[in-house]
């Protein structure tokens, strides 16, 4: 029987690996997700057989409750809110590992002669730490993303020494927990510190750095599952946990690279705050405005168009009306593409999901490296709710805080139209020189409303 269970875990692990492998191609991705979920089902069934479910009723109740919440949220959530959902679910994953580790601790320490060896207690403590940090860190990220708390960095004096102090206290309490296994005081100290550390490490990080934070927390939730695998001596947890851990780390690296910042720089936080004051008295930029009709005419006469979407597009919910704009252009045989910057949106790949939801074919969405040379041969670039990712200061101005960040070469196009609500600055708090360029025109107003008008103008023309 044990062999059958172990084999089932092995099959589950293989299915997880294949599931991720299938994600390498967009057309196979859905099947990959399916394989992975079958792997999960096999792992769950094998565990139910293994424990001979003496508490069948409770298990069923918990699973039904969890599934109902999960399904409700999964089908209800708007695509603009996916980052919030991922942050929340990361937190749940972390909290689950945290609770499993504590459960194991109380079970063992509650025995008449508590005996938790060094390996087991190290695993439990690590699982509490990583799980706890993942939980509270994700909750802070969630609250920042949905606007319940301010997205701007929260910093205070002595923040870093405090974190260090807490970490040292954690190590001391860990040793004490191990040495006094029947005394539950120390594990409570560990719980409190790990929850605090999660909050303290995420509050100094600004809203636009959330793609990095979510990726990192994703990785932590995998590592927490891994640590739980060490507690339970279970291979499938370690395989699955390390896959997720690796995935989160790679995405974190991609995001940092796309912002030309080191992970340390992101984690220390405070970005955008000091910068804004430093730049406040810079020279102001004179911009040229354009109206809806002229915009429609420019689209009508162009032969190639590239749209640069940013988080502002998601906020204005303009993705559907942009598809209508695309249809109008395609009727006129205008080449129409989207240029996606890796950090556009609030999580990696966020723009792609939003545009896919608006029924835009994924082969129209082009990555930065592939499209950057095309801008100079493009008639019209339409920037919707993006700012820092097209700021030429990143190339030209060594004083700029975003200098060195890879950007989309939108400024190289013949004409650039920027759809923007007002002259507000981007997240980095920097003036965007592009707006003052001779080939750049500003289309002010809510993106959804103005683009709707442009589309109806275009319809009238034909």
């Amino acid at each position, binding site marked *: 029987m044990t062999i059958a269970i172990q084999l089932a875990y092995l099959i589950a692990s293989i299915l997880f690996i294949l599931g991720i492998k299938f994600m390498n191609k967009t057309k196979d991705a859905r099947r990959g997700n399916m394989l992975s979920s079958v792997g999960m089902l096999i792992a769950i069934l094998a565990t139910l057989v293994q424990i001979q479910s003496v508490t069948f009723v409770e298990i069923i109740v918990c699973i039904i409750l969890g599934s109902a919440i999960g399904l409700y*949220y*999964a089908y209800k959530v708007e695509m603009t809110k996916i980052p919030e*959902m991922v942050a929340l679910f990361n937190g749940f994953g972390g909290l689950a590992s945290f609770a499993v580790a504590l459960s194991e601790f109380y079970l063992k320490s509650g025995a008449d002669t508590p005996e938790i060896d060094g390996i087991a207690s190290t695993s439990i403590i690590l699982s509490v730490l990583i799980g706890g940090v993942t939980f509270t860190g994700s909750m802070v990220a969630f609250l920042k993303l949905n606007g319940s708390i301010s997205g701007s960095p929260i910093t205070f004096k002595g923040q870093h020494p405090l974190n260090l102090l807490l970490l040292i206290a954690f190590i001391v309490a860990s040793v004490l927990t191990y040495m006094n296994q029947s005394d539950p005081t120390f594990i409570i100290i560990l719980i409190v510190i790990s929850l605090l550390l999660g909050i303290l490490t995420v509050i100094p990080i600004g809203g636009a750095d959330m793609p990095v934070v979510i990726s990192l927390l994703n990785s932590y939730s995998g590592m927490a599952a891994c640590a739980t695998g*060490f507690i339970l001596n279970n291979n499938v947890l370690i395989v699955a946990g390390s896959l997720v851990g690796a995935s989160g780390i790679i995405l974190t690296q991609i995001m940092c690279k796309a912002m030309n910042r080191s992970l340390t720089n992101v984690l220390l936080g405070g970005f955008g705050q000091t910068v804004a004051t430093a730049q406040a008295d810079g020279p102001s930029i004179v911009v040229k405005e354009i109206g809806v009709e002229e915009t429609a005419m420019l689209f009508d006469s162009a032969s190639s168009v590239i749209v640069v979407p940013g988080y502002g597009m998601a906020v204005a919910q303009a993705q559907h009306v942009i598809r209508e704009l695309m249809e109008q252009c395609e009727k006129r045989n205008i080449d129409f593409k989207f240029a996606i910057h890796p950090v556009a949106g609030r999580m990696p790949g966020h723009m792609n999901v939003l545009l896919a939801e608006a029924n835009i074919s994924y082969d129209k969405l082009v990555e930065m490296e592939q499209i950057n040379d095309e801008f100079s041969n493009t008639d019209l670039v339409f920037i919707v709710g993006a700012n820092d990712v097209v700021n030429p200061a990143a190339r030209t101005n060594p004083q700029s805080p975003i200098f060195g960040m890879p950007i989309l070469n939108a400024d190289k196009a013949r004409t650039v139209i920027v759809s923007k609500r007002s002259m507000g600055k981007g997240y980095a708090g920097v003036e965007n020189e592009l707006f003052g360029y001779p080939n750049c025109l500003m289309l002010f107003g809510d993106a959804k409303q103005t683009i709707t008008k442009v589309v109806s103008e275009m319809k009238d023309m034909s």
Partner: protein
Amino acid sequence: MSIESLIILIYILVLASYLGFELIAKVPPTLHTPLMSGSNAISGITIVGALLACNELGYTSLSKWLGMAALVLATVNVVGGYAVTDRMLKMFKKK
């Protein structure tokens, strides 16, 4: 746990992480959001631990209640994670 079995677990950890890096580096940026929500669902594998933890008779022990809480949370993570990933991937179409 013996040192031998710990070393085997570390082997698995190292190899699986390496495999993870190799596989995920090949995922196109278009799919990074579904990749993240999908891997989020995979991290719900801790559900296995939760099932083991709540398998105790009686309702008086703290460890059982923690296990049940973990089971609910991990199920939300697994079911919600896979469902939303599928919902997203269904939208990716080529015309």
